[in-house]
Every structure is written in structure tokens, then in C-alpha cells.
């Protein structure tokens, strides 16, 4: 007997699914409105959450945001490694470029000579524009644009550098120019070589005069790290590069505020769009509502049926919205930052819930109004 009896809820599901599937063209219009809304919403939220990460990485291309220098007698690689322990744990360390400085002369012209590791320089100062190439072998140097102009030399030329070897003797070395660097800054007046080459010329190993650090972190995190290093590593003084960290923070906060504002505006527009569509859908079904009321449906019956349809529509629209929203955010990220975006799993419940709530809320008022209609008037076609 049980098998023959249609359970009420089965009939309810039948009515809800039939309404959606057999009125396909109407349903697609409503679904499209919900999908567009959910797509933009989930896409904007993804962009909003990913902007700090994207911008943080982007801003790292503007150079170091923390500089370590000796606080007293001298600083070694070990001291730098010790200081590194106090870097912000949340942020990625893009690179640490250690420098040792000296002076030298070419053709009687004095220049600053810096020894460093170029692999680290490429990470910390990606804005350096090098004509030729970075030194890749011993005996090669990279010279600044100003140096090149002063000496009238080109990439591939050999120059003789001489200077104080440290033990009061004078060194002299023939060095090949592998590249000329342009930065628009003081770097253009320097001669760069590998740290080991410079140590070979002036003596003393393991000493470092400065370490430029590029860390993905906020200005306040950098400040905290600097204070921590000053307190815990006596040989090192740490200085945040205010110009970079504070402007990075200002740009970030303005951008996130802008995206948040756009997200809120889009959310409101989505609600209006879905509400309007739902109102049209409900208005179109006034006669059906009147008929159901005439044959005995209560207002509650009508509202529950529409709720079922809209929960289904909202869920389906939300699911599509999550997928399309991610693709939308990915496209935005690729175009603006040239980087992929990370998927936020939290977006699944948030978008689904927002989509269902917006759809249900959008249809509740028109359905409540429609449920109040006088069946006699509707059935007469008025």
C-alpha cells in the first residue's frame, strides 16, 4: 500500500522539478540572472582576497624593503642568517642580496666597487636593466651606465681596476665588462663584481657591508621585524625602506577598498537584477497561483513551492557562479598581474549561501504579494 501512495513530499518535489524542467525557457532566464550575479560576486571576492598577495608580489619588483647594515665592528653572513630568523613568518622572503663595498680606480677615475651574488640581486632588484649580461665567471664585471659613459667603454671591453688590497699593497686586475646596468638610481655609478672576486682583490672573507632584503610583508610587519632584529642580533642594524613599504601599504589599502566597494555595488546590483527577474517570473505566474488557491492551496503552500524552486535555482546558479567566478577572477588576475589566482575553498559555501539567500529573498516579496491575490479576479483574467 505504501508503494502505491505518493508521499506528499514526493508530489512536492515533482511539482518543483516539473515547474523548473518543463518551463525550461522561463527557468533559463531566471537562472542566467542568478549565474551572472553569482559569477561576479564570487569573482570579485576572489580578486578581493587575492589582491594583497598579488600586489605584495608585484611590489617586490620595486626593490628591497628591509636593509641590514653592521651596527658595530662588522657583519658576517652568519649574522644575516641570524637576522633572517626574525623576518615576518607570514611573508615569503623573495631574496637577500649581500654587498661588500670598496673603492677602486680605472684610468685614474675613482669608483665605488661592490661585490655581491648576482642571482640574489636579480631577485631583490628585478628592475635593474642590464645591457649585455650579468657576470657569470670570475674576472667579469657589471658597470653602471654613468661609469660606462665616463670611461667611454662598451660591453665586452677590458678595463684595468686597481685599488688598495687591504694590507697596504695595491691590487691591479684586468676585468671584462659583461654588462652595463641602468636603474635610474645611484647604482649607475657603481662597478659590480662577484663577492668572491672582490674578496680575492681586497682580502677578508665573510664580511658584509649591507644586505638588501625583499620580503612579502606589510609595512607594520617589516617595522616589527626591524625592531626585533635590533634587539636580538647585536651585530646588525635593520632599517625598513619606508619609501617602498609605506607606499606599498597605501596602494594595497586603496586597491582593496576599491575592490570591496565594487563588490558591494555589484552585490546590490545583483540583488536588484535577480529581484526584478523574479518579480517578472512571479507576475507571469499569477494565474497559476490563483488557480492553485482556487482548488485549495493555502498561502503557505504557494510560498513553500516557490521557495523550493528558488532554493534549487539559487543552488544551481551558485554552483555555476563558483566555476565562472573563478575563471573570471583568473582572467582578471592574468590580465592585471600576469599571475594565476589561488582558489579559495571558502568561496563554495559563501557563494552557494549568498546565491540561495539572494534568490529566495528576491522572490519572497513578490511571492507573498502574489499569494495574496484574489483567485476569482485572477481566474477571470483581470
Amino acid at each position, binding site marked *: 500500500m505504501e508503494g502505491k*501512495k*505518493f*508521499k*506528499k513530499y514526493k508530489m512536492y518535489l515533482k511539482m518543483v522539478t516539473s515547474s523548473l524542467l518543463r518551463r525550461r525557457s522561463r527557468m533559463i532566464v531566471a537562472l542566467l540572472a542568478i549565474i551572472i550575479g553569482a559569477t561576479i560576486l564570487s569573482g570579485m571576492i576572489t580578486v578581493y582576497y587575492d589582491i594583497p598577495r598579488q600586489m605584495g608580489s608585484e611590489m617586490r619588483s620595486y626593490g628591497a624593503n628591509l636593509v641590514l647594515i653592521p651596527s658595530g665592528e662588522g657583519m658576517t653572513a652568519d649574522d644575516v642568517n641570524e637576522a633572517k630568523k626574525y623576518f615576518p613568518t607570514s611573508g615569503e622572503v623573495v631574496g637577500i642580496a649581500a654587498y661588500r663595498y670598496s673603492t677602486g680606480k680605472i684610468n685614474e677615475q675613482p669608483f665605488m666597487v661592490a661585490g655581491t651574488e648576482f642571482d640574489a640581486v636579480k631577485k631583490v632588484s628585478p628592475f635593474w636593466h642590464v645591457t649585455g649580461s650579468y657576470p657569470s665567471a670570475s674576472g667579469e664585471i657589471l658597470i653602471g651606465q654613468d661609469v660606462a659613459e665616463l670611461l667611454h667603454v662598451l660591453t665586452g671591453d677590458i678595463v684595468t681596476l686597481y685599488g688598495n688590497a687591504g694590507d697596504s699593497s695595491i691590487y691591479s686586475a684586468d676585468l671584462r665588462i659583461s654588462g652595463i646596468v641602468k636603474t635610474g638610481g645611484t647604482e649607475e655609478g657603481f662597478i659590480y663584481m662577484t663577492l668572491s672576486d672582490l674578496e680575492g682583490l681586497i682580502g677578508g672573507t665573510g664580511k658584509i657591508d649591507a644586505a638588501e632584503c625583499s620580503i612579502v610583508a606589510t609595512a607594520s610587519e617589516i617595522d616589527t621585524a626591524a625592531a626585533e632584529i635590533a634587539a636580538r642580533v647585536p651585530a646588525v642594524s635593520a632599517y625598513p625602506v619606508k619609501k617602498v613599504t609605506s607606499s606599498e601599504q597605501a596602494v594595497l589599502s586603496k586597491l582593496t577598498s576599491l575592490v570591496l566597494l565594487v563588490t558591494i555595488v555589484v552585490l546590490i546590483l545583483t540583488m536588484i537584477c535577480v529581484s526584478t527577474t523574479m518579480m517578472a517570473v512571479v507576475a507571469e505566474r499569477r494565474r497559476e497561483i490563483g488557480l*492553485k488557491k482556487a*482548488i*485549495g492551496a493555502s498561502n503557505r*503552500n504557494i510560498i513553500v513551492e516557490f521557495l523550493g524552486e528558488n532554493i534549487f535555482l539559487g543552488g544551481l546558479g551558485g554552483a555555476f557562479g563558483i566555476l565562472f567566478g573563478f575563471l573570471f577572477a583568473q582572467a582578471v588576475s592574468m590580465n592585471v598581474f600576469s599571475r594565476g589566482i589561488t582558489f579559495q575553498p571558502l568561496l563554495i559555501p559563501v557563494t552557494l549561501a549568498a546565491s540561495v539567500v539572494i534568490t529566495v529573498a528576491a522572490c519572497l516579496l513578490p511571492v507573498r504579494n502574489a499569494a495574496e491575490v484574489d483567485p476569482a479576479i485572477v*481566474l477571470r*483574467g483581470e
Partner: protein
Amino acid sequence: MNVLELKNISKIYGSLKALSEIDLVVKKGEWLAIMGPSGSGKTTMMNIIGCLDKPSSGSVILDGKDIAKENAAGLTAIRRDKIGLIFQQFHLVNYLTALENVMVAQYYHSMPDEAEALQALEKVGLKDRAKHLPAQLSGGEQQRVCIARALINSPMLILADEPTGNLDEANEGIVMDLLQGLHDDGSTVIVVTHDPEVAEKAQRTVILEHGRIARIIENSSAEKADET
């Protein structure tokens, strides 16, 4: 036993008096026709009897209860439990099959039962069209689905508003035979019509004019049919 009693009912829309001091008694198992020209108050009377509207004054006693005192939810419950409505323009839910349209009435009333709904469709000769959508049915077939839906919950009163108004002659005959069958089975049937041939089938015909009962005709041919 009286199924329906209208006691001095009037219906006023603004300055228009659609119904004026109507008194009428309908007995259990009776077939009554309500006739009249356009604007005579037929539809208003049908709406009041069908619990789709309330009178401005007077009382409407249906199964011993004054429905004039009910609110909208109460009227809905009475429509659901006691009245089977048949409309001129069929009015089926267009995304549900014939069978599902019948089962909807069961769903709102109590419990959907596919077998019972199929029996009702069989009674109106549409068992083989049970899985068809309204758009796939002819006008006559749609009206027969309406009749199956109206009788599925065994209402105490079947109320038909111009049930043959949109049908050709052949389908009109089928629908009238179905109504005759319902009456023969003991159902109380009230038909609102402007067609004298339809009204003739009833035992009594109430003629409305200007919102008043002009006369009531005892239909002898119907009585003869009953006697046979």
C-alpha cells in the same frame, strides 16, 4: 437535507449592486442551473457559492456553516474540502501532466494517490492521456481533466462555471454526460450557464436578472430523466 442556503445575500461593488437580496436553497443531490444574461450577477453568485468571494450582507450556509463569516484562509479550506470547481477556460497547471493536475488537488486536500487519480481520469475517459501535458490535450480533454480534478476529493458540491462555453458540440455532449453521471452518483451539481440546452439538463433553473432571482423553473425533462 440542504447542502447550501443563501439567505438574503447582496453583493455591492462601490455603487453597483451586483446581487440583491438573494434567497436560495440547494438540496443534497440536486442539479441546479443558474442562468441569466451578461451582467445579471451569475459570476458574482458563482464566486460566492464557490467561496471565492463573500457577500456584502446576508449569510451563506454551506453544510451547516456560515461561510460569510470566514476569513480568506477559512474560505480556502472550505474550497479545498467541500467544493469541486470546474472553469470555463479549463485552468490547468500547464507544466503538470493530466494525472499530476488531478493529484495536485489531492496534494492540497490530503494525500496524493496516483491510483485514485488514474481512476478519476478513467471515469472521464482519459486514462490513456494521463501522462500528457495540457498543451498536448484538446479543449474537451482539458475540461474532462478539470472534471476529474473537481471530483477527486469527493466534494459535497460541484460548481461548474460555463463548463461547455469553450467546447464544440461533441465535447459539450461528453462533458454534460459526465456531469449527468456525477449527479446520478449523488453529487450536488450547480452549473452557471447562459446556454438553455445546458440549463435544461438541471432539475431546477434559477434565472437571474439585474442581480435578483427573476424566476425558478422546475425542469420537467430532467425530472423525467431522473425517473427513468
